[in-house]
């Protein structure tokens, strides 16, 4: 490759980097702007300050933000855990066993994945009010399964198809039952796929806004995206922009860290499920 060509590739790469990071850089920069700087019309703060972070972590906005952060982590982790367990069994059956209805399960997963969230929200809103699940953790965990289960099943079955299943047969020849072969041989082999699926499912639950804003009303269960959406309407602070930016940065950090650590696997997980599925 000539130096000239190389330069062009570097420029193209730099443009992509700029594209990906620019809005993130902007919100980080915004989060360090003080009240006087917020409307300065500049990209960068003229005198960076940590004020916004103290507002949301210890100050006036902390009773809106901190419970939301706890709710988000708790609800998303539980929903991810449940859907990964269920999807693990389902994906094993789909990738490994021969039984009628396999196609039905995969098509159901596809239909559920494309289901408009808002169409589920309307009846749930009414139902949850009647049976007392409105504004509770469980009231969000259940609908979150509709977001996380389908993609978990698809991604995991794609991963499971790649597993060297001869190992399982070898174990069965050695006298293990199907169940033992699954637990002792396949689970360790499948762990990376399960783990990747868990990350992707967590992203999806973490990203939810429609359920969060519709099925909660207090800090008892309200997750972060919904709380962020309400920051603007809350009257307890003068200008919520800086606080929103700081809160946005805090909730973005965990996912960016996960992405940077596991990027290779996540890419494989996202594309396997969709292209080969």
């Amino acid at each position: 490759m000539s130096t000239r060509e190389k330069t062009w590739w570097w420029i193209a790469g730099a443009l992509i980097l700029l594209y990906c990071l620019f809005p993130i850089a902007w919100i980080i920069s915004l989060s360090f702007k003080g009240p006087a700087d917020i409307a300065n019309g500049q990209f960068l703060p003229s005198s960076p300050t940590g004020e916004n972070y103290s507002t949301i972590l210890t100050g006036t906005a902390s009773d809106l933000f901190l419970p939301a952060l706890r709710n988000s982590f708790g609800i998303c982790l539980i929903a991810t855990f449940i859907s990964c367990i269920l999807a693990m069994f389902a994906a094993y059956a789909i990738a490994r066993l021969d039984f009628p209805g396999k196609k039905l399960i995969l098509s159901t997963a596809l239909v559920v994945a494309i289901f408009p969230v808002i169409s589920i929200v309307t009846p749930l809103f009414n139902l949850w009010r009647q049976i007392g699940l409105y504004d509770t953790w469980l009231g969000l965990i259940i609908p979150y399964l509709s977001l996380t289960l389908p993609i978990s099943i698809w991604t995991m079955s794609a991963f499971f198809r790649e597993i060297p299943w001869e190992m399982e047969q070898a174990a069965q020849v050695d006298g293990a039952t199907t169940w033992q072969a699954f637990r002792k041989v396949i689970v360790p082999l499948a762990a990376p796929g399960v783990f990747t699926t868990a990350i992707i499912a967590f992203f999806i639950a973490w990203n939810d806004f429609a359920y969060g804003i519709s099925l909660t009303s207090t800090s008892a269960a309200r997750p972060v995206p919904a709380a962020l959406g309400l920051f603007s309407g809350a009257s307890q602070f003068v200008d919520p922009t800086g606080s929103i930016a700081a809160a946005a940065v805090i909730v973005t950090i965990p996912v960016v860290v996960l992405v940077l650590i596991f990027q290779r696997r996540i890419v494989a997980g996202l594309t396997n499920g969709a292209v080969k599925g």
Partner: protein
Amino acid sequence: MTTTTLPPGKKTEPVSAPPGGISDRSRAERRLGWMLAGPAFVIMLLVTAYPIVQAVYYSLFNYRLTDPQNRSFIGLGNYGVILTDALWWQAVAVTVFITVVTVVVELILGFALALVMSKALQSLRPVLRAAILIPYAVITVVSAFSWQFAFSITTGFVNKWFAWLPGIGADTDWFGDKWTSLLVICLAEIWKTTPFISLLLLAGLAQVPDVLQEAAMVDGATWWQRMWRVTIPNMKAAIMVALLFRSLDAFRIFDSIYIMTAGANGTESVSFLAYRQTISRVEIGLGSAVSVLLFLCVMGIAFGFIKGFRIDLSQARGER
């Protein structure tokens, strides 16, 4: 001849059931299969099929949550009200506009990104792949805020940076008008979801056989010809999958609109309309009817795509 065969034979070809019922082994396998996959299947049905049936039921009533005494059965009355209301058709138009604009731009941009990533220098590739996942992983609400603040008349920098362009000045209110609001909404959506498309297309690019490219090159095809005659036809499946998922996703747009405009200036999408009827106005009946219509739209798009997709697949097979 009935001999016990070794497992490999059993695996590759489907077991032809012996006359007079299925073997114990395959019956056990069948039972195990449903035992393992059953719970996930049942839960998926419970969390979607049940609510949508409930929504269909509610949609037949004149039912307001604050006024439960006056709940009355009105048949398809709610659908009549919605389908003759300009608000519904405006929401449909906005949703279709956003879907078409974002998906077309994302497909082109995503393809360009995928091409750069597939050809990029070895040293650059992991960095790009990690970076491109960041917009995907950022919460939609956060991305919506970031774009809103950037264009906002008070906190933004866009007006200052682009003041040299005609029509943009310090007092340009991007969220004061329907089309400029929609432009910013589309920008935010495109930024957030292009990486997903480009990753799918990158996987598709990797499946295009190199020999075909080389043969075309030997035959003297230009870069452009190779792109249109070799690369794109060979990754049609990946393109269709990306298109299908993104179109359905775009049609359900809700988060960005809620954050950026809250439906002001005629920027309401179908999802937002359903939300406003049900949650804000507690018109359970009307809101349910909008939800059901939204569901039918999404299923219609999916069905259309899959029908089209099948035709494409058979065409591709016929060409080979």
